[in-house]
């Protein structure tokens, strides 16, 4: 029986690369491809893949909230998070969301097959830096892992996080309502609750909050006339 993998990344070119990499393995098949988190959740419910690989920075529903929604629906889903950043906060959130694998996009060609194999064998797989961080956090009773975390952030519900992302992406309450199959009034109520919980006063504040907390990711600044850059595409 084949191992069935669902891919979720908003860049088709990355999905093509991942497909080519994974389908070289005999006995593995990519059973579906999603271009955002919402589509990934729908496809996963329908296709019941053995492994789901999700990019963190997806529109509509980011990879972390996709992971949360998948595991809320079925805790047996095995999720590998793909990311361009290995900041402490993102690692911590991915672990909290329930991801069982964490692979840097820049290392995907080297690590992704190993990550899928690990999950297939009921183990976890984390890129070496995450292993170091988890170990350091364990040895230091959580001090290292928590060091860069924003202090005492209020907790948003899954629905509120979804709505926060959509509003921060520039959608109106009416558009959010249509996307989530809710009434505009319900969305407005969620919106008020979000603003109150987070002590925010404008959509601009909400966008800043969403960026700081990895709910949305922004395109990097334009490297005008720079000689060398270290950020990854």
């Amino acid at each position, binding site marked *: 029986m084949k191992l069935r993998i669902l891919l979720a990344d908003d860049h088709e070119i990355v999905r*093509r690369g991942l497909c080519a*990499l994974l389908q070289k393995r005999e006995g593995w098949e990519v059973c579906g491809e999603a271009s955002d988190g919402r589509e990934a959740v729908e496809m996963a419910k329908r296709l019941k893949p053995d492994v789901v690989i999700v990019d963190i920075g997806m529109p509509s529903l980011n990879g972390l909230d996709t992971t949360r929604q998948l595991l809320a629906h079925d805790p047996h889903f095995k999720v590998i998070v793909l990311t361009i950043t290995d900041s402490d906060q993102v690692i911590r959130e991915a672990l909290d969301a329930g991801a069982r694998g964490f692979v840097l996009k820049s290392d995907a*060609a080297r690590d992704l097959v190993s990550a899928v194999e690990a999950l297939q064998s009921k183990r976890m797989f984390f890129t070496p830096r995450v292993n170091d961080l988890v170990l350091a956090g364990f040895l230091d009773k959580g001090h290292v892992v928590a060091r860069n975390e924003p202090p005492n952030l209020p907790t948003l519900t899954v629905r509120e996080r979804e709505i926060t992302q959509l509003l921060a992406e520039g959608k109106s309450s009416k558009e959010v309502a249509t996307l989530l199959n809710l009434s505009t009034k319900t969305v407005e109520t969620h919106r008020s609750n979000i603003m109150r919980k987070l002590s925010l006063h404008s959509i601009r504040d909400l966008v800043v909050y969403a960026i700081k907390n990895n709910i949305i990711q922004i395109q990097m600044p334009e490297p005008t006339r720079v000689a060398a850059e270290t950020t990854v595409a």
Partner: protein
Amino acid sequence: MQHKLTGKDMAVRILLVDDHPIVRQGLRTLLQGRGDWEVVGEASDGVEALEKIDDLQPDVVVLDVTMPRMNGLEACRVIQQKHKNAGPEVLFVTQHDSPQMMREALDAGARGYVVKSNAARDLLEAVESVSNHRVFTALARAPQVSS
């Protein structure tokens, strides 16, 4: 800019330059559909790209903008300075969906500009165009080709 292709039977030789191997694999997969094109090599930054251009003499260089050691814009300028009108055509494939960045790429000597999120839609047409010395630019909106 002169091109080394002289006959219809000659394959277009393509060099892929991106710091993410998985993106290079995706580009390669997209280009495989064309039997008359050949991916002759890959490089992970601008410095390596310049070395590979000397070794492999590609007709088209598919170049990312943001890379370590030497970014794509710098690499493109060096290619133009070094090869004058006899070098490979440069096609940028980048995440920067920005008219400013596109202008900068064309000023650096690139013949084409495609946004990564639309690469699956635009890449083949872009390579076809630049290999025939036509400008191809495509931001998030519809692509434009000009001679």
